[in-house]
């Protein structure tokens, strides 16, 4: 009983949670969303570029995409984040006069996400039946327009669920940005919880942070499942018999 009470006080101190909530809403939530959304957007654009390079007919482009992907997928997120923001941060500061590591953190997350998103797009595009390209070319479209108007749109549609998953991962990984040492107004959900927890010596602010993440990620996870199902089965799957076949033509048949 004593243990339970102690655990309860450590994790579910409602007063501590209540104290941290306003800052989480006002500062943490917007920052988490800004970091995840901008890294997601930049990562998606870079990822499309990487995917197109990866399926390019130019071997140099393919190699660049391959090496980039291997490196950024093969390293721990925290290492990339620190190397990029600590390594390139000073250069960025000199060039722009902006001293916060916030943009560098977003850049690091975006570069990592791009490697995964690039692979998602590439596999999606390559999963499109090659008859689609052939049919488009047979109509008289060139290779480029065929890819752009017929193949790539089908590939992208297929990978929407995987892309959403990547965005969920970004929401969670945005917490790593705390290692860069941000200003109070730049803190995201996790760091606000962490700061409050170290001030009070109570872990309840972490629980509050956790609830914030779950409120963001669980609905997204279910949305992914819904979209996935919808793409798999389609809205309607009605096949009709060939009722018109018999009335066509003059009956010559084999």
């Amino acid at each position, binding site marked *: 009983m004593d243990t339970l009470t102690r655990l309860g006080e450590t994790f579910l101190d409602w007063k501590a949670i209540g104290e941290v909530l306003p800052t989480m809403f006002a500062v943490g939530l917007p920052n988490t969303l800004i970091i995840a959304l901008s890294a997601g957007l930049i990562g998606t654009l870079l990822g499309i570029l990487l995917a197109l390079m990866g399926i390019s007919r130019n071997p140099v482009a393919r190699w660049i995409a391959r090496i980039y992907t291997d490196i950024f997928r093969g390293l721990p997120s925290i290492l990339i984040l620190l190397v990029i923001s600590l390594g390139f941060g000073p250069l960025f500061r000199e060039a722009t006069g902006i001293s916060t590591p916030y943009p560098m953190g977003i850049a690091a997350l975006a570069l990592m996400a791009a490697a995964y998103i690039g692979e998602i797009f590439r596999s999606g595009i390559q999963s499109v*039946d090659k008859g689609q390209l052939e049919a488009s070319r047979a109509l008289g479209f060139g290779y480029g327009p065929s890819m752009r108007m017929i193949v790539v749109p089908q590939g992208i549609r297929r990978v929407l669920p995987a892309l959403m998953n990547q965005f969920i991962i970004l929401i969670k990984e945005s917490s790593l940005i705390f290692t860069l040492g941000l200003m109070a107004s730049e803190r995201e959900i996790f760091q606000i919880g962490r700061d409050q927890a170290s001030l009070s010596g109570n872990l309840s602010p972490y629980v509050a942070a956790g609830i914030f993440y779950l409120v963001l990620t669980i609905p997204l996870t279910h949305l992914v499942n819904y979209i996935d199902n919808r793409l798999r089965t389609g809205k309607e799957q009605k096949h009709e018999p060939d009722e018109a*076949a018999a009335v066509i033509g003059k009956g010559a*048949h084999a």
Partner: protein
Amino acid sequence: MSHFESGSLTGKNLHLAFGHNKVLRGIDIHVEKGTAASVIGPSGSGKSTLLRVMNRLIEPDQGDILLDGRSVLKDNPDELRRRIGMVFQQFNLFPHKSVGENVAFALRKLRKLPKDQAWAEALEQLDKVGLKHKAEVRPATLSGGQQQRVAIARALAMKPEVMFFDEATSALDPELVKGVLALMTELAQEGMTMVVVTHEMGFSRNVSNQVVFMDGGVVVENGSPEQLFTEPKTERLQKFLSDVL
């Protein structure tokens, strides 16, 4: 009386190899304007590849291709393919576009028709294959036979001078084959120049004007259906016919 502005098609000494695999080894073929040639032969004999070489989806290693007597090897291949319609075994309709848009798409983008005019022409083509009422739905909701008729409408909408059919009925359930063959027969009778790669010996014999028997990347026999089906000269054709008939 021809409904189509069709042209003759000639392939001269066409060669193609994928690495060491010689797929076409000197093919000569001539299809008169307004006639239908069927290309028959065992799997792997190079029939489908021949079609792809003649519309330059695959460039030949050697040889020449003539449309209406003029070599087209130096033309822009994309423009050449607008003059040759192609229908595939697996239909290859664009699944993310409606049936009508499948037909209208190339009209807008390649023939540069305004949107409503392209749609009106697409509906007209769909009407010819009996599927105007399906213009708004996605291809996946149609049966295989219906999908193949849409694919034919899509190719015809470009007003091609020649039509290629690559085993157009092979992927269809038996009861759906009839409608597609009937449509192809109608096209042949209306004077479309056609090259039909097929396993449908009935079509080959009764509808086409010329039969080309290929085996091992060469034309083994070439002549009227009468000649090839009743008096096959070579042992290879005799064996092939006894296997398939």
